[in-house]
């Protein structure tokens, strides 16, 4: 929260503000519930890290989507295009730097991966700019048309990707220093999953900082609650939305790179395949809530990995089941911000 002025004394004894920690406690509760079921501690550690890494990547991708919906009620079913495009751009960049990627040096690996991520974010952000102007803007306030035209935009985009890179899947091997696992006792944890978890936490921390410590963040939080009032205070909500949309697209591009490296192969359909998962996450989290999106993504990641190991058939619909259960408990999601 933004600090008070020096002229304002500390509040007198006031009732404590209740913090709703129950959704947060779901994460350790589910993880602990899975512990006896997995049979061994090392398997549980491996699955938990896999779930956290998957959740973090989904969070990076979905965070922009939830803000875009919160600010302008825009349902962007074309978000998957940004994921796919990010992964393909990074593959092209990394493909031209094979010497760096194959080197056993982590620094040389990062000299290929970091520019690939930045270029992917830049290009996808630029595509997001055009997407918002050409596809989203004409259908503000028309949800049915938004669904149709954004899905149409994604189909066209995916076909263009096939024209440029081909329809076949392309391998995206992990750089040498990042591939392989670290052993914690008997538990093997892939290095990349640790890195993905750290990157996800960093993105979350930066987003929290921006949202709570800057005026732009304040405006985004206010706009998600009541955009008409934000306009009445003199701010152009359309411009704010435009900026958030581009940032969200760039983050989806980054998530696409990370998802591609997580799967170690990319296909033109990868974004479309993950699209449904994104909407499940933002519905579970509560529309417009970054914190809710973070917890929702981690829940989805953990549940997908635990059920994939324990009951593969259940894993096919585990995310839908999770969403249904959460909505039965909290019909507006874990931390709803948008109440209109």
């Amino acid at each position: 929260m933004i600090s008070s002025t020096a002229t304002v004394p500390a509040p007198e004894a006031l009732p404590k503000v209740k913090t709703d920690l129950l959704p947060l406690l779901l994460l350790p509760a589910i993880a602990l519930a899975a512990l006896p079921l997995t049979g061994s501690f090392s398997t549980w550690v491996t699955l938990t890290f896999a779930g956290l890494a998957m959740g973090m990547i989904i969070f990076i991708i979905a965070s922009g989507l939830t803000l875009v919906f919160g600010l302008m009620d825009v349902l962007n079913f074309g978000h998957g295009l940004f994921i796919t495009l990010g992964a393909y751009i990074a593959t092209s960049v990394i493909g031209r730097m094979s010497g760096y990627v194959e080197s056993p040096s982590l620094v040389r690996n990062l000299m290929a991966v970091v520019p690939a991520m930045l270029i992917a974010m830049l290009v996808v952000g630029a595509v997001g700019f055009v997407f918002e102007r050409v596809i989203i803007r004409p259908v503000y306030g028309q949800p049915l048309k938004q669904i149709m035209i954004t899905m149409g935009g994604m189909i066209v985009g995916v076909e263009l990707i096939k024209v440029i890179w081909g329809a076949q899947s392309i391998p995206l091997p992990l750089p040498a220093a990042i591939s392989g696992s670290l052993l914690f006792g008997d538990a093997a944890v892939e290095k990349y999953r640790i890195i993905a978890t750290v990157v996800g936490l960093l993105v979350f921390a930066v987003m929290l900082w921006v949202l709570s410590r800057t005026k732009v963040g304040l405006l985004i939080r206010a706009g998600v609650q009541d955009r008409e009032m934000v306009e009445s205070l003199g701010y152009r909500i359309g411009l704010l939305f435009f900026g958030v949309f581009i940032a969200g697209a760039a983050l989806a591009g980054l998530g696409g790179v990370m998802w591609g490296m997580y799967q170690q192969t990319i296909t033109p359909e990868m974004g479309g395949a993950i699209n449904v998962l994104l909407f499940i996450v933002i519905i579970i989290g509560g529309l417009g809530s970054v914190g809710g999106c973070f917890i929702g993504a981690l829940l989805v990641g953990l549940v997908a990995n635990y059920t994939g190991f324990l009951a593969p058939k259940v894993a096919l619909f585990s995310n839908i089941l999770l969403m249904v259960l959460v909505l039965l408990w909290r019909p507006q999601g874990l931390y709803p911000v948008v109440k209109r």
Partner: protein
Amino acid sequence: MSEPLLNLKGVHTRIGAYHILHGVDLQVAKGEMTVLLGRNGAGKTTTLRTIMGLWPTAEGGISFQGESIASRPTPEVSRRGIAYVPENMGIFSDLTVCENMLLAATGAKRAEDLDAARLEWIFGLFPALRKFWQYPAGLLSGGQKQMLAVARAIVEPRKLLLVDEPSKGLAPAIIQNMITAFRELKQTETTILLVEQNFNFARQLGDQVAVMDGGRVVHAGSMAALAEDDALQQHLLGLSLASHQ
């Protein structure tokens, strides 16, 4: 009479298939409080929202300081110096009281950037805001939220305040606090257009009054004249009640 600060001439507003305002004529003089009275559905809130550009002007003209603001984008209307306190107060409930105030202050990025002297003056008007400064606004009572809504509108000097039913749903003691605050605000020669249904509240504050019915202004004059004229009050309120039934 000199050019009014705000001038509405024959303003019509349509929302979808509904024709709400049917040629509103209204003048708000600088430095005065003009009260807009009328029954539910008379068009008072629509008039304020049309001035703010939240709904487009279908016909007619709205000028502020002699320049047209009809159907201008809401942020532009606001930046001309018009602050709006909506009927639902427009409080950002997940933000703290401090953050709500910051949003209304042009160029202020942190609480330290707010005008300290003005803030003290506002705390004098609404002491509860000091107490709950770092609290989420959603935890405030209805009266405190209304205080915050008005305080937010005056965190910087404004040329015109549009306030929609500030007494709605408030306890009598809080209404008295609000009257005191508006009286002090009037001493700063802030121009205010106040929408009210509570005539008792309105007559203690208003300099001028306009009564709306059926999307039109059916009476305009001084509040003192209306307050003293029981027959006119009866006529206007009777008219309103009759058309309401």
